[in-house]
């Protein structure tokens, strides 16, 4: 598991796409923190969220899924498609492959997000750990979802298309669910992370549970699959 995670993590840092996304997130954090100083005293709080983090949060919530999907949509599907997975499944358990991939991708995003928070912290002189873990829960869910898609669909070209589609539609669905009053749709919001992200308490921890469920489903499917 550790080796798979390490390789996944290193590979993410090697790609041009990932470097571009990291730069984008860091730039958003920098300017978010810089411009927030202009409104100091006027807008200390925005819907329970420090305004310094607003740019970064909007970026993660709106584009997090598409960022993660674009970088890792083929994390499992490419191994299946190119049959490199045959070397992996003969050496370690399939659950270890899923977890290794998950933690490798997660570590990449933890470092990316942590760096962003440090950057913001330099301007604000403090780091809001609550928002950090809240954002992390959202990223964790998106990573688990990406892995599930990559296990479900063994063709990288299809996962790329699906990843883009989910990346665009998922936040739209989330925001629609938050605003809709249709009775038949209300219950759906409880099974998406957006509802829990909106709450100013620790209910975002439920999102970690959702992520674990997605990983369990991915592991179950990979366990049953012939490679």
């Amino acid at each position, binding site marked *: 598991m*550790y*080796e*798979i995670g390490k*390789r996944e993590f290193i590979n993410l840092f090697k790609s041009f796409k990932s470097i571009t996304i990291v730069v984008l997130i860091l730039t958003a954090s920098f300017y978010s923190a810089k411009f927030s100083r202009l409104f100091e005293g006027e807008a200390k709080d925005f819907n329970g969220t420090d305004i310094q983090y607003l740019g970064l949060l909007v970026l993660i919530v709106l584009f997090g899924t598409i960022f993660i999907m674009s970088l890792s949509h083929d994390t499992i599907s490419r191994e299946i498609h*190119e*049959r*490199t997975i*045959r*070397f*992996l*499944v*003969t*050496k*370690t*358990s399939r659950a270890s492959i899923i977890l290794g991939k998950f933690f490798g991708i997660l570590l990449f995003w933890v470092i990316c997000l942590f760096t962003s928070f440090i950057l913001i912290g330099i301007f604000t002189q403090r780091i809001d750990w609550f928002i950090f873990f809240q954002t992390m829960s959202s990223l964790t869910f998106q990573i688990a979802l990406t892995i599930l898609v990559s296990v479900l669909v063994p063709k990288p070209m299809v996962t790329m298309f699906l990843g883009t589609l989910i990346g665009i539609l998922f936040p739209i669905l989330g925001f629609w669910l938050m605003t809709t009053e249709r009775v038949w749709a209300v219950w759906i919001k409880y099974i998406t992370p957006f509802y829990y992200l909106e709450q100013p308490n620790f209910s975002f921890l439920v999102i970690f549970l959702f992520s674990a469920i997605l990983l369990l489903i991915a592991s179950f499917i990979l366990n*049953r699959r*012939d*490679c």
Partner: protein
Amino acid sequence: MKAIETKQLRKSYGKTEIVKGISLTVEQGEIFGFLGRNGAGKSTFINMLTGIIHPTSGSFSLLGMEGGDNMAKKYIGVMPDYANLYGSLTAMAHLKYFSALSGKPAAKAVCMEVLQQVGLDEHYNKKTAKFSFGMKKKLGIAQAIIHDPELVFLDEPTSGLDAESVLHIQRLIRDLQKRGKTIFMTSHNLNEVEKLCTRIAILKEGRIVQSGSMDELRAAFRSTINVNIKHSPIPASQQESLHQWLEEAGSNLELNDGEITITVESEQKISEMIRAFQQCRVEIYRVHVKEPSLEDIFLEL
């Protein structure tokens, strides 16, 4: 403890049954050859044992551990058929990665030693994207043995290799056996299997149609024996009677100057033939009995 034990192992894809209830046992320290024509189910069988695919029914154990037990993976090495390497990794990086995955991280010196064993030591720092088919095959074997497994599965280990490399790999397989390892291999090269394997199973349409040591297979298929005898000139007075005796003793009789070739049905006939020659005062210089080769047996099946 058996190295491999399978009980009624089956694999179906939809309504097509590829492996039709195979039960076999492989003892530790054996080189077991698995033979069969294309599509006979050899790779499917190996893939089930190595956890690449799941059996539809039946059970198996590897080194006493139940099939599917992840613990067994530490003790087995697999060179699967139709598996690609990571093009962006070097040969050395592959071995380091795979040995660590197997739970026994190999030091650089150990990796070099294994690369040397398969004849890839000069290419240790080359990315596998630049490797030829044969080089990839060799690295496939190297990764299967890097963690010093007790049981090694090799699916077509020498196909596509040049003659020198084939000998190199065959030597390596023998060395592994000398070190007490069990090898389960498939091959299209019948001579190779005959030369290397202590026991062989022949698969046809998903079923084992014959198995055993080479001698056992020969015994099962020895319906006729070809004998070639070089001898001194036959005295003119004995020629007719000896020819008559030989015609009755066997078939496909060919008489050349000082040499006869005949097909007989039992080994007993050979000794009778030698006695007949001696009674006719004919000296025998050489007797050559042609045993049925694995190829003969394979083609007969």
